[in-house]
C-alpha cells in the first residue's frame, strides 16, 4: 500500500540521516585515534548510509526530484566531515600561531 510505503520511507530517511551522522562521528574519531578500527567503522557506516539511500531510491514512492536530492545529499554528507575537519585544523593552527 502506497501510504505504508511512504511512512516506511520516513523511517528510512531517518536511518539515512542517522547513518550520515555516525559516519561523521567515526570519521572524526579516526582522525584523533591511531587505531584503524575507527576508520573501518566510518566506512561501514557510510556504506550502510549508501545502502539506505539506494533503498530510498529503488523502493520508495518518492518522486524523481526528491530522489535526486537524496543522491546529492549523500555526497554532501560524505564531504562535510573532511571539509569541516580540514578547516578546523586550519583555523586552530592559525589561532595558535597568533597566541
Amino acid at each position, binding site marked *: 500500500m502506497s*501510504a505504508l510505503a511512504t511512512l516506511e520511507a520516513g*523511517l528510512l530517511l531517518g536511518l539515512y540521516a542517522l547513518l550520515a551522522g555516525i559516519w*561523521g562521528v567515526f570519521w572524526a574519531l579516526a582522525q584523533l585515534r591511531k587505531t584503524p578500527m575507527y576508520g573501518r567503522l566510518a566506512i561501514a557506516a557510510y556504506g550502510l548510509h549508501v545502502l539506505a539511500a539506494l533503498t530510498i531510491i529503488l523502493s520508495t514512492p518518492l518522486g524523481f526530484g*526528491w530522489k535526486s*536530492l537524496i543522491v546529492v545529499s549523500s555526497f*554532501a554528507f560524505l564531504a*562535510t566531515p573532511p571539509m569541516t*575537519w580540514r578547516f578546523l585544523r586550519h583555523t586552530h593552527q592559525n589561532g595558535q600561531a597568533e597566541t
Partner: protein
Amino acid sequence: MYRSQTLAVKYFSAAIALFGVMTITGLIAAYYYINPDFLFGILPFSIAKILHINTLVIWLLMGFMGSIYWFLPGELGRETAGIWAAEILFYVFCAAVAVVAVVLIVFQYGGSNEAALWLINQGRKYVEAPRWAALGIVVIMVVFAYNVIGTAIAARKTTGIITVLMIDLIPLILLYLIAFPAISNMSADLFWWWWLVHLWVEATWEVLIGCIMALALMQLLGTSRRIVETWLYIEVALVLGTGILGLGHHYFWIGTPSYWLTIGGFFSALEPLPLLGMVVHAVYDAGAQHMKTTNRPALYWMMAEAFGNFIGAGVWGFMITLPQVNLYAHGTQWTVSHGHFAFWGAYSCGVISVLYLVLQRTRNLAIVDGSLWKWSFAALNLGLVGMTGALLVSGFVQAFVERAIGGSTLDAFISGQENAWFIDGMVARFLLAIVFTAGYVVLVWDVLTLGRRAPAVAAAAAAQ
C-alpha cells in the same frame, strides 16, 4: 562578581525551577493519555499542556538571558548598562509568570471577548499567555536588548559575538509581536504564527544559542576568540541559509500555495547538514582536550547539545519533513517525538552546560566533577531519548491507522488512539518521563550541593 553575574545566577535559579514546573505539567499531560479521567473537571488536559509548553519557552528564555548576563561583563570589560532595571524586571518577570500560571489553573478560560484574551488566555499555541503578560515579555526583552547594546555603547567596544547577538535580538523581539493579534482567518493566523515559532526556534534562537556556546567554549576550553567567531559566522550562514526558507515546511497544509511543498521540503531537507558539521566540530573539541577539562559536566552537556541537536532536530526532523511523508505524519505523536528531542538537543543541553560553567565560578571550584551530575546526565538523556522512541512508535502507528487508513475522521482518530501499539507507546513514554523526572531531581540536588558538600568529598573530587 559583577551585578550582572549575580542577576545571571537568579535567572538560572528561576529557569531551573520552571524546568521543574515544565516536567510536572508534562507528567500530568502524559498521564491523561493513560487515564483520561485523571483531574478531569479540575485541570483539563489543555491547561496542563499550556503550562507545559509555556514554561518550556520561558525556562529556556531565562536560561539564555542568564547566560548573556553572565558572560557580558567579561566580554565588554564593564558592568552591564542599565543593570538596575534588569534586576527589578527579574522579579516582575517571576511574579508575572506565577500570576499567569495561577490564573490559567484557577480560571482557565473566559468568554469570547477581548477581555479574556487580555487577562486569561490567548489560546494560540506557545503564546497562550494573556496579552498583559505578553506586553510584559516585550518590555523585559527590550530592556534586555538595551542592557546588551547599552553596555557596548558605554564600553565603546564590541566583539564579533556580541555584534551577532545584538543584531539577532532585533528580529527576535520584533517576531514576538506576532503573539498579540487575534486573526480571524486561520490560514493567515497560522501563516504569521509560524513566522514567530519557526523563526524563533529554527533561526533567531539558533543564533542566540550559537553566541552563548561560543562564549562558553572560550571559557571551558580556552578556545581563541578568532576561532569561535569564524565558526559562529559559518554556523549562522548555514543555519539561516537553510532555516529561513525551511520555514516553508510549516506551509504544506494550512491553505497556502503548493509551491511551498517543494521549497519548504527542499530547504528543510538541507537543515541537517550544518548540524552534522557541529557534531564533527564537537568531536574535534573533545579530542583536542582528550575529554580532559576542569568542568566535566559542562563539557559533557555541550557534547550532548551538539549530538542532541543533530539527532533530535536533524535526523528526527528529516524523517517527517518531505511533504509526501508529512501528509501522513503531520499532527501526530511523530511530531511530538521530534519536538521533544529537538528542543532538548538544540537548547536545553546547552543551557545546562552553561549552568555548570556558572556554578564553577560561583562556588569557587577548581574542578567540577562528582557522581551526581553523571546520574542526572544519564537519567535525563536516557529518559528523553526513551520518551522520543516511545512517541515514535505511537506516532508511526497513528500516522498509519488514523491518517493513511482511516482518513482522519473522528472514528479514525479514535481507532488510532485505541490501537494497542499506540497505547503501549504512550505508557512507555510516561514511564520514561518518570526516569527523566528522576534525572531532573538529581540535577537540582547536584546544583544545590555542588561545592557545598562535606569537605572530605570535595577534597577527594579536587584531588582527582
